[in-house]
């Protein structure tokens, strides 16, 4: 983790986010068929990607912990998992809020939506599992294994649902993919992605700092006991 202090990251994230909001509401043109409701797309898909990216980071640092056995990596893995869960929750809520006016339904078993829900379930159980294990080392080992297996499963879920969906096709996601977007829309979407990733990096560095502060207190108490 680069040693930039989290305040600098906060400023960067805030500035990018403000520009993103400006672009989403003012710069981006209104979508012809759906109208302004389509503006949810920018933040909805960006938070989906950042959520997915966060779980990828957990996967990576879980593997790093299993290899290096240093709790420092596990601290990053669990922090990233928590943030991933936060952004995936946002994705699911905004997704339904967008689906309701456009297709008249809250949910559809589309491959992307379902794999996001499965990701959300798996990492919710990842975090709950951690609460049930006392020993810090054991908790790190077991949750790393769950983090790795859980993340791999999502790709299989995506393909099995995609095949399953072609059996019983659901309403096609109008304008869902980034391809059919006007150039300004693509620019706005790209910018939102960057802004959200900056926000993710800021929150991650904050959470990692909190984890380290907790350890610092533990160390102080331990030195007090030894005296």
């Amino acid at each position: 983790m680069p040693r930039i202090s989290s305040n600098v990251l906060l400023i960067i994230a805030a500035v990018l986010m403000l520009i993103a909001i400006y672009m989403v509401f003012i710069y981006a043109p209104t979508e012809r068929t759906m109208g302004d409701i389509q503006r949810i797309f920018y933040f909805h898909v960006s938070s989906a990607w950042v959520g997915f990216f966060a779980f990828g980071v957990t996967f990576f640092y879980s593997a790093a912990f299993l290899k290096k056995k240093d709790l420092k990596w596990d601290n990053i893995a669990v922090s990233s998992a928590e943030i991933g869960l936060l952004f995936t929750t946002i994705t699911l809520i905004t997704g339904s809020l967008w689906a309701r006016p456009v297709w008249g339904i809250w949910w559809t078993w589309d491959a992307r939506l379902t794999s996001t829900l499965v990701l959300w379930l798996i990492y919710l159980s990842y975090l709950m599992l951690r609460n049930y294990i006392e020993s810090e080392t054991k908790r790190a080992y077991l949750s790393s294994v769950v983090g790795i297996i859980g993340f791999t499963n999502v790709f299989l879920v995506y393909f099995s649902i995609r095949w399953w969906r072609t059996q019983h096709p659901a309403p096609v996601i109008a304008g869902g993919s980034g391809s059919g977007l006007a150039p300004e829309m693509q620019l706005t979407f790209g910018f939102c992605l960057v802004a959200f990733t900056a926000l993710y990096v800021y929150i991650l560095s904050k959470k990692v700092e909190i984890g380290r502060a907790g350890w610092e207190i533990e160390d102080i108490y331990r030195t007090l006991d030894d005296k």
Partner: protein
Amino acid sequence: MSETKSVFEAQNIVKRFGRSAVLKKLNLRLKQGEFVSIFGPNGAGKTTFLKISAMIISPSEGNILVFGENIKNAGDLARVEIGFIAHDTFLYRNLTARENLKFYGNIYGIEDIDSTINHCLESVGLLNRAEDLVSKFSRGMLQRLTIARAFLHDPTIMFLDEPYTGLDSTASVFLNELIHKFYNTDKTGILTTHNLDQGYDLATRLVILNNGRIEFDADKDSISKNDFRDKYTEIISS
């Protein structure tokens, strides 16, 4: 004994639970025939060190060598040489005594398994109960079967984690017999205990482990029992 290769060696063993180190850079070298008693208060890390030496769990840092071979490469082959007696019996409740020993016999790849089982059961006086379910065994019989299981594959290095605590009289007689038989066949062993007298009498070498560090390591004949007792209380209270 000539300068034989070390049978067992622990090099700079460190073990962290969470971020606090339970074992801090332990070094221990055993030659053929040496029998070490490790003394220390509860929480000094005795059981953890034994589990690491017996390769049940791996150390955070450092190496374990069996016959000079690092277990990271020897791995499962080295485990054939290891025996372990702990508080847990390692026995399956729903299997009979013979089935339990047959199971471990297959795992350890013992050739003439049946005769070895009969011999082991006889040496702990359980041959007549071989076909009974372990769930029906009394505490004493369970302890004796545990001893039979530990010596089944005739290990060259035996680890005993406070074997005498809670042992009834008949079982401890059998254990004493087997340990002394162990002695004469030039085997090696590490025993952890609270009981100063018993540990002192059995050992050829005495080690005191206190909050994760070896603070005393000397041959038995270099110190009398009383001096050792004072040394022990002095180290523990420091």
